[in-house]
């Protein structure tokens, strides 16, 4: 197995997650869309902290900024912070059962959304709709399935 292989799978899944994140959805469904890109980046920073790590988080966040951020660097900062936490604690998180992992993901999503929210406020694009917090819940709920899927499809050595 070459060293570049997991990196390739990582980039592929990240790209797919980015597409899922920007895919147009009906407006009533849009706030409930899980943050696929954040989940994928979290997965890879826990499963292979060496391969992507904080750089992956930062660049994924920058792409998110291009697509939907009012300020460049906003999602990049938030995502690199929770990627850092995940990379640091990856061994502890790995050993937890799926439900507890989902709780950790919920906490990470809350931190992420709070940073985005704070920067929104700082840059004068404040939106205080409660709908913006909805995807922290849906992301946590979908985490066990997303992690299992990624492990089955891409995580194993071939």
């Amino acid at each position, binding site marked *: *197995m070459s060293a570049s292989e*997991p990196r390739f799978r990582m980039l592929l899944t990240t*790209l797919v997650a*980015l*597409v899922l994140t*920007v*895919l*147009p959805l009906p*407006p009533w469904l*849009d*706030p409930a869309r899980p943050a696929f890109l954040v989940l994928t980046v979290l997965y890879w920073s*826990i*499963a*292979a*902290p*060496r*391969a992507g*790590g*904080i*750089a992956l*988080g*930062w660049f994924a*966040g*920058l*792409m998110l900024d*291009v*697509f*939907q951020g*009012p*300020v*460049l*660097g*906003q999602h*990049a*900062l938030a995502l*690199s*912070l929770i*990627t*850092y936490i995940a*990379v*640091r604690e*990856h061994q502890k998180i*790995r050993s937890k059962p799926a439900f507890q992992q989902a709780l950790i993901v919920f906490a990470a999503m809350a931190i992420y959304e709070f940073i985005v929210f704070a*920067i929104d406020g700082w*840059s*004068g*694009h404040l*939106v205080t*709709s409660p*709908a*913006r917090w909805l995807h922290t819940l849906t992301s946590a709920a979908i985490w066990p399935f997303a992690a299992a899927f990624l*492990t089955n499809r891409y*995580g*194993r*050595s071939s």
Partner: protein
Amino acid sequence: MAAFGTGTGRQLHRGGSPGFRFTLYALLSIVVMFLDERSHWLESARYVLQSAAYPIQLAVSSPSAAWTWLQESFQTRDALRAENNRLRAQQRSMEMRSMRFEALERENAQLRGLRQALPPVADHWLVAEVVNVQLNSLRQRVLLNRGTTNGVFKGQAVMDETGLLGQTLHVGPWSTEVILITDPEHAVPVEIERTGLRTIAVGAGDTASLALPYLPANADVKTGDLLLTSGLGGVFPAGYPVARISEVHRDAVQPLAQVRAAPLAHVDLDREVMLVWFREASPAAPGPAAMTDTPTGNPLLQPQTAPPRPAAVPAPAEGSIPAAPGGKKPDAPRASSTAPSAEPATKPAPATKPAAPATAPRPRPDASPPAVPQ
């Protein structure tokens, strides 16, 4: 490699510890944010990133585009013929309506005291296709398949055949992000067609309504009033239809009326929109963001019936008018009942002088288009 089995401590620290690298990236993000928010140094970076993002956006929109294409190609002959008939009837009624247009224009010019009729304000336009749509309560944006290679510039007006749609915000080489008039961060200077009262229409975050938050409770506004662009603000020319007042609430304890308007453009249905270039010499062209007393050039364009401009145009105050319709209003007169007529300072009392200042020729900004919302 096992799924959860890589990254022993030593290898993890290659290229600095995670903490060090995180600090680096966090600093980088903060620098990027500052540069993007406070200056325009990152426009070129955004340009590159946007062109990199365009293929993804195209791919994302391809299923719905394919579906539309399929629907169109399986339309029956009858449906096509019906549509053709309908379009022909429409064209005939348009021609009937525009038949008197030139005569009316000449008459209008005479009434205004101009010696010759003025060319229409719209110079030419470009049809663009909507590639990607973001319509939620936080962001109302669409992506068009035209960019700088087609001559599109930042702060350009976007319309459909029924009314104003928005303005370009980030222009890439092949794509352009458009902020719609319904975006909560967008505001367009308008005037009420019936009375000439000028105010500002702010996006309300859904495709069906605009808010007019700066009208006093006793303002002369009724349901059904048409809102036109006022030509102030430097982006949109005067006189283009924007919206129709849909509801007016007057509360005895509130100094301001709560007014909503429904945009005329089909904000959520459009697949094709128009990017418009305006003739700069036309008096209806968008006024400059920062008013300076430069000579207006063609003396023929001076309206003779308009009141003479005060010699000391308070230039700095005028310049402080939020440059773009989308710009945040500095200290919007929300709470103050003394100056609720939206256009801060320098404007005459609303409703008393209907259209005169709006038709007065304005010097063009010789610089790039004015700042647009970030």
